[in-house]
């Protein structure tokens, strides 16, 4: 925003200054107010999907509503309660239903325990994926290859490569593995091959394999060939750029300079 306006908002009774239009979650966190999240990550745009970051926002005159703080823009004079009964009610609903869906996932168990939920009142399932969509967003927004998407809708929704097959534009970078909060995307480098797959309720989908490339001099692993090519072409590096690891490339340059 070009004409950023400084505004005053109230968070849990404390007045703080910030810039109009910034996302509420960021402002709360900067001011030491902790709000749990599952579908939020600084590297990607907010989606407002998990609703765990629910807080109650009022106009100070008695009218208030529940909003997802990760995607809610701040405005002057707003009064925020992050632990109001209504906000906590939504958070508990989210955690209790997610715990029933994915009872073994550590991050869900910990969060649920924090809100006093040990056993959900619903039949348990054995999912790991909570459909937060972080992997999809990191792949399209950060990596820029759109290899992942959500398939289907409602309770049948699944996440993965198109049609959950191995067919996709995936370059094997592993960004989704890193960002997934429930660790249901797996990556394994073995015998010169990298395998990435999504595993939910014991079913493996979106299995992708990549040949790994090693340094021609020292043999250090460099990454999947496909990914290195993708980066090389995108950045416009010389064709032999990825033959050597950075260390050997530097040594090579020194040798060339001295001879």
């Amino acid at each position: 925003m070009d004409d950023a306006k400084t505004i005053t908002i109230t968070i849990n009774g404390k007045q703080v200054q910030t810039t109009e239009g910034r996302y509420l979650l960021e402002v709360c966190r900067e001011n030491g107010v902790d709000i749990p999240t599952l579908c939020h990550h600084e590297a990607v745009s907010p989606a407002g999907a998990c609703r765990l970051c629910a807080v109650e926002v009022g106009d100070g005159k008695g009218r208030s509503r529940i909003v997802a703080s990760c995607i809610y823009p701040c405005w002057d004079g707003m009064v925020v309660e992050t632990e109001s009964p209504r906000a906590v009610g939504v958070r508990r609903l989210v955690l209790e239903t997610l715990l029933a869906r994915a009872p073994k996932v550590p991050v869900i168990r910990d969060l649920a325990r924090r809100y006093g939920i040990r056993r959900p009142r619903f039949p348990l399932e054995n999912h790991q994926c909570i459909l937060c969509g972080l992997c999809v967003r990191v792949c399209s927004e950060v990596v820029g290859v759109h290899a992942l998407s959500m398939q289907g809708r409602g309770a049948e929704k699944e996440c993965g490569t198109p049609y959950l097959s191995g067919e996709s534009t995936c370059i094997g970078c592993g960004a989704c593995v890193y960002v997934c909060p429930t660790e249901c995307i797996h990556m394994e480098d073995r015998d010169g091959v990298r395998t990435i797959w999504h595993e939910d309720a014991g079913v493996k989908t979106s299995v992708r394999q990549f040949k790994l490339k090693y340094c021609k001099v020292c043999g250090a692993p460099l990454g999947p060939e496909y990914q290195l090519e993708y980066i090389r072409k995108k950045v416009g590096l010389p064709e032999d750029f990825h033959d050597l690891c950075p260390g050997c490339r530097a040594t090579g340059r020194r040798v060339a300079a001295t001879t």
Partner: protein
Amino acid sequence: MTGTSGWVADGRTGPTGTPLIRSPRDLEEARKRFLASYQAVQKYISVCGGTGCRGGGCLAVAQAIRDVVREEGLEQTLPVRLTGCHGFCERGPIVVIYPQKIFYQQVKPIHARKIVTRSAVAGEVLEDLLYKAPDTKEAIPHEEDIPFYRKQMRLVFGRNGAIDPENIEDYIALGGYSALVKALFSMQPDEIIEEVKRSGLRGRGGGGFPTGRKWASMKKAPSPDGRRFVICNADEGDPGAFMDRSLIEGNPHSVIEGMIIGAYAMGATAGYVYIRREYPLALQTLTTALRQAREYGFLGQDILGSGFSFDIGINRGGGAFVCGESTALMASMEGKVGEPRPKYVHTVEKGLWDRPTCLNNVETWANVPLIIARGADWYAGIGTDKSKGTKIFSLVGKVNNTGLIEVPMGITLREVIFEIGGGIQKGRRFKAVQTGGPSGGVIPESLLDLPVDFDRLTEVGSMMGSGGMIVMDDRTCMVDVARYFLQFLTEESCGKCVPCREGVRRVKEIVERICRGEGRMSDLRLIEEMAPEIADGSLCGLGQSAPNPVITSIRYFREEWEAHVRDRKCPAGVCKDLITYSIDPVKCTGCMACVKPCPQQCITGERKKPHVLDASRCIKCGACYEVCKYDAVLRQ
């Protein structure tokens, strides 16, 4: 033309030749000519061509009538017109003889000859094809005297039966596009917005948001490149609702005229109609209407010489219920997955392609020309304090007269159901009415005198929605009704946010368990605890309103829920796991009517002697119960 963003909508080729009408004066002259030729034909036969009547075979009826007209050599003197929906679809196909306006219903091709020769030519009224009052059995020759129509106020629907939707000249003849002339040549854009504000018009697509206020915000919102859009929401995903379809099929130019006026008022550069995939007839009618509007000069460059340029394209819906939600609709138009996004930044500021966008429902747009032509004061005089004008409802379920009705806001549910709807079928008892589509609430008998308006319906836990109205009788189980809507909503949830995706399906599971007789009293408390959390936590209107049916059902029919849970009984006899069928040996006359319909052959007995039902093989289909004339089949 600006703002097509690289995609060219259906039929949008821009003006090819010069338009036929280039100024307000051209329009007035054309109107005189069209009206003269419209009125020259005094005597004609009109056949309803709405989708309901088409299902009943109206095209075959029209063909048969045309054949007879030709055989009798009457082509020059007795035209046959196909019109838009009359609303009384249950009685279709409908044929009206002009100028006497004799209203024939349930017409079949074999009636063609007598309709032409005896009625249209000789002036006889054919008793057997008239509508008969259910109570007095009196035959009623004119549409306006039929109870179904008497309490209606057909403003938006008014011209549906009078014009040929494929012929723009009919619409012009009856005053069409004069509101546009008024708006373009004697009103400033802000005056139009002010007029719509003062009229009190609220959105007919569900939320009831004040239309004038929405227009004013859109007008104010800046656009980085000047592009601004108006969209007509014709997605109509509610099962059983077909008012928007009938409007487009019956009077498409009223919607188009409303959109042009709105575009001018808000400074829009392009318009789109987002129309449901499953509506081929509406799509065809709309395509024709847009083409004619372009040819006659109401769309395109320099409309009627006003300097204002604007055109409308068609976009076909994504197919899911949730695609009717504003942000999902726009995502789908941009070629993305049709999923909602949080609306903390409103679509009037950042909508389609992140440009200011005003989305209104079909019926909302169709109200605009009426307001501009007849004035905000006239409009605001109809309806209640905060709900103005009329509303079209799709009246279905266990009422005698089903169909599309248009009533003034503030009419009571009792008037709608018992006067227009003619009461409950087979003289059974009214139990509840569900308003507002799949996420509306159920309203019990004690609230029948409730005036129908946005706020009163919301107060009792339901909503106006887009205007669905399902009437239920005493054989309906309210637990089963809640289960049905929860199932629909679970299937239609897009699955993006947790409260809706996980919450609604868990409530559905609990209700299914209760229907199976495995409920606990704590279940009711659990549902009541989850409902406000789902409503508070969900991202879009689908999840936010999803608890309505189950919560109102528990609120107004708690004994029935408790009977399911505590006594493991379904008082209405619907939940299969909770009922058994048997035969009362005292009442059974041994007529044997039930023996054959039973698919399990579990009813045995001799003629004139009491029969026996073997409950161990019974699959509870209820076939015997339906056929027994002596109430001897017991359902407990």
